[in-house]
């Protein structure tokens, strides 16, 4: 079970790095916003798995709040790009 969590953390760290590279390279504003969205989803998953590692039930609330509020920033940026904010 320990090795499974190690492998999952390595996968998520690689995902964070790839999304960050796309954020730096991306030619348009949409690419960078997609990178932010992916980073948010990977962050929620990482928070839940870290909560399991630390064995505290209270820690899951952070991931819950993050999943609720994380997409508002992306929607505001999208409305601004659309010209309709």
């Amino acid at each position, binding site marked *: 079970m*320990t090795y499974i969590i190690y492998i999952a953390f390595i996968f998520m760290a690689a995902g964070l790095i790839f999304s960050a590279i796309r954020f730096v390279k991306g030619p348009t504003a949409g690419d960078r916003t997609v990178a932010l969205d992916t980073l948010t989803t990977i962050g929620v998953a990482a928070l839940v798995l870290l909560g399991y*590692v*630390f*064995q*505290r*039930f*209270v*820690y899951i609330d952070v991931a819950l709040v993050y999943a609720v509020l994380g997409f508002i920033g992306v929607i505001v940026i999208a409305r601004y790009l659309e010209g309709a904010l």
Partner: protein
Amino acid sequence: MNNTYFDLLDYMIYGTAILIILIGLYGALVKKSLIKIVIGLSVVDSGVNLLIVAIGYLKGGTAPIFSPGYLANPIKMVDPVPQALVLTAIVIGFGVTAVALALVIRLYRHHGTLNIDEIKDLKW
């Protein structure tokens, strides 16, 4: 799962926090655009918060929150005072950022520019 993984990582966190403070300070001092100055102040705020929380960290500790999972298996807790301070500082930092951005919008409507070299008169 053992919790004693912070060997040299705490120094790494300290170095990161100080580096972020210096980067934000550079942005706030050197850049010409007013919004970029506010972004620099926000980055400084993040670095200070990270530094204070890292000072209160205890190796192998857990969060200072009582819950049934903690009472079944009690181990030592980290210092709760810096966390309370940072919790207030985050909200105050957001208020400072909001007021600064409101002033930026007022300045732009009056002067038509955001370059601080072109905003010279004190009265508006």
